[in-house]
């Protein structure tokens, strides 16, 4: 340790004693932190760049709207359908759980519920795939519905947490005013509280969909047997979908298939990124509006 001593107060204020070394250490730390951020951004840019550059050449109206061999329309449609079914299952339950957390539960109940939500959120998606398989596919057949059940479990904690945060921001005054007017609890929840929080609830749901739309593992086990040659609408058959098709193409080793996969990747990534960014911005705005 270099000699450290009490500085002469009248000496100049440039770094003296061991300060030069300490400032150097601080500077190195700052550079390292900046480098780390640059590294992460670089990874993002590299991935997005590959997807955009390699995928863009495949994108065309045909690609989006027709079936194999000219396009991947069935997969896009199937993904939408699976996401829709999953959300129809997850959203009501998620919102009800959020209402439970904000309107009805005590502190202990809320803590337990939040723990449960966190645990569900942390379940590996391949496990959810196994679950949906065991429940709905084994001894029966693959179905888009089974995949949707797994995705619904993925969406549930996100919708519940997001809605709860928005519901919490609804001013207590609104509920109190309603009570004071003698309006029943359930009426004020349905006609006052929920509508106020609706914007935030919808954006939380969009975020949940963006997350679930990219999940492959649950679908691999429940709705992956399709050929993409025709549009399938029946959810109780295997619905074509984007993630499992990309996965299949990636494992096949066929360069033409790779191109198709890049094109689908671009569509998927674009949807997810725009949905995420847009929903996040809107969510931040609704929260700000509610708490102002």
């Amino acid at each position, binding site marked *: 340790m270099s000699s450290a*001593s009490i*500085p002469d107060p*009248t000496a100049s*204020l*440039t770094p*003296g*004693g061991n300060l030069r070394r300490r400032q150097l250490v601080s500077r190195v730390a700052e550079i390292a932190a900046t480098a780390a951020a640059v590294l992460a951004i670089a990874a993002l840019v590299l991935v997005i760049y590959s997807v955009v550059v390699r995928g863009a050449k495949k994108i065309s109206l045909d690609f989006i709207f027709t079936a194999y061999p000219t396009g991947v329309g069935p997969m896009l449609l199937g993904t939408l359908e699976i996401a829709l079914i999953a959300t129809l299952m997850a959203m009501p339950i998620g919102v009800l759980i959020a209402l439970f957390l904000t309107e009805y539960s005590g502190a202990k109940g809320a803590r337990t519920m939040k723990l449960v939500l966190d645990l569900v959120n942390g379940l590996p998606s391949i496990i959810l795939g196994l679950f949906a398989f065991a429940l709905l596919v084994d001894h029966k057949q693959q179905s888009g519905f089974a995949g949707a059940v797994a995705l619904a479990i993925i969406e549930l904690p996100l919708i519940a947490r997001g809605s709860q945060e928005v519901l919490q921001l609804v001013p207590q005054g609104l509920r109190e005013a309603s009570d004071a007017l003698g309006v029943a609890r359930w009426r004020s929840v349905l006609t006052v509280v929920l509508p106020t929080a609706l914007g935030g609830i919808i954006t939380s749901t969009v975020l949940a969909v963006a997350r679930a739309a990219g999940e492959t593992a649950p679908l691999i086990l429940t709705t992956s047997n399709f050929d993409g040659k025709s549009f399938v609408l029946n959810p109780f058959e295997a619905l074509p979908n984007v993630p499992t098709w990309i996965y299949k193409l990636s494992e096949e080793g066929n360069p033409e298939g790779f191109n198709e996969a890049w094109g689908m990747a671009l569509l998927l990534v674009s949807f997810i990124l725009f949905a995420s960014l847009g929903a996040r911005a809107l969510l931040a705005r609704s929260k700000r509006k509610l708490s102002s």
Partner: protein
Amino acid sequence: MNYPDQSVPSRVRIQTGATAFPTAVTGTTVQPLTRPELVFDAREVSIFYGAKQALAGVTLGIRRGQITALIGPSGCGKTTFLRSLNRMNDSVSGFRIEGQILYHGHDIYGGNVDQVEVRRRIGMVFQKPNPFPKSIYDNVAWAPRNLGLRRGLDERVENALRGAALWDEVKDRLKDSALGLSGGQQQRLCIARAIAIEPDVLLLDEPASALDPIATGAIEELMHSLKGRFTIVIVTHNMQQAARVADRTAFFSLETGGEKPVGTLIEVDETEKIFAEPRDPRTRDYVTGRFG
């Protein structure tokens, strides 16, 4: 390393052999051996936060070994001025300073000045006690360790705690968390923390305002005992406190000369004169309680 012991507070004026200098403040040559040296020489200091001006043209000298109090109504810039003395305002966005603050003749905001070096010599205690969530010992020992003052650390900690009139109360529980202390004790701990590295100056920003009257009294006694060893500048909204404790007092107020109110230094003089025969009618109004 001498810390004054906790003797009965006295208001003995320190006689030093410092060289006299003609100061811009009074414009007169001072007699040697009766005016202590100038530690801070603020010249026409104006402070802006973005477009808003917080302080206008403050010219003020702070002398060695004395306690100088900055008083005035809320929002008149006294804390802003205090924090500029150790460059704590640097992190506030939009902060801009005009004029000069000389510390022992060196411009604090000069080109090669390292703000860490500035804060090494000019310590600060804040309004609300802010002990680290560490043990009492570690709170006091943290800064010396950082600075490399590792030899005689135990002794240094003890002397600092004695100097802050806290030793007897905590000597048996140095390893306990600092957060278990009362408010007044925490503030004295913060003072001990500051004096452990033997700064030249101590800046106190309303140190007793968050404390009860008994704790306040203890802090004031402490200031008397610290006075000779350190140069102290204290911001207080409590006039009686300034009268009890300070050698010199500077009165700040909001002037609405221009379009918007700006903090201005109205008058600075020996404390007795400020309170007994202030020159400026605004000072007289304030100290006699005519306005808040």
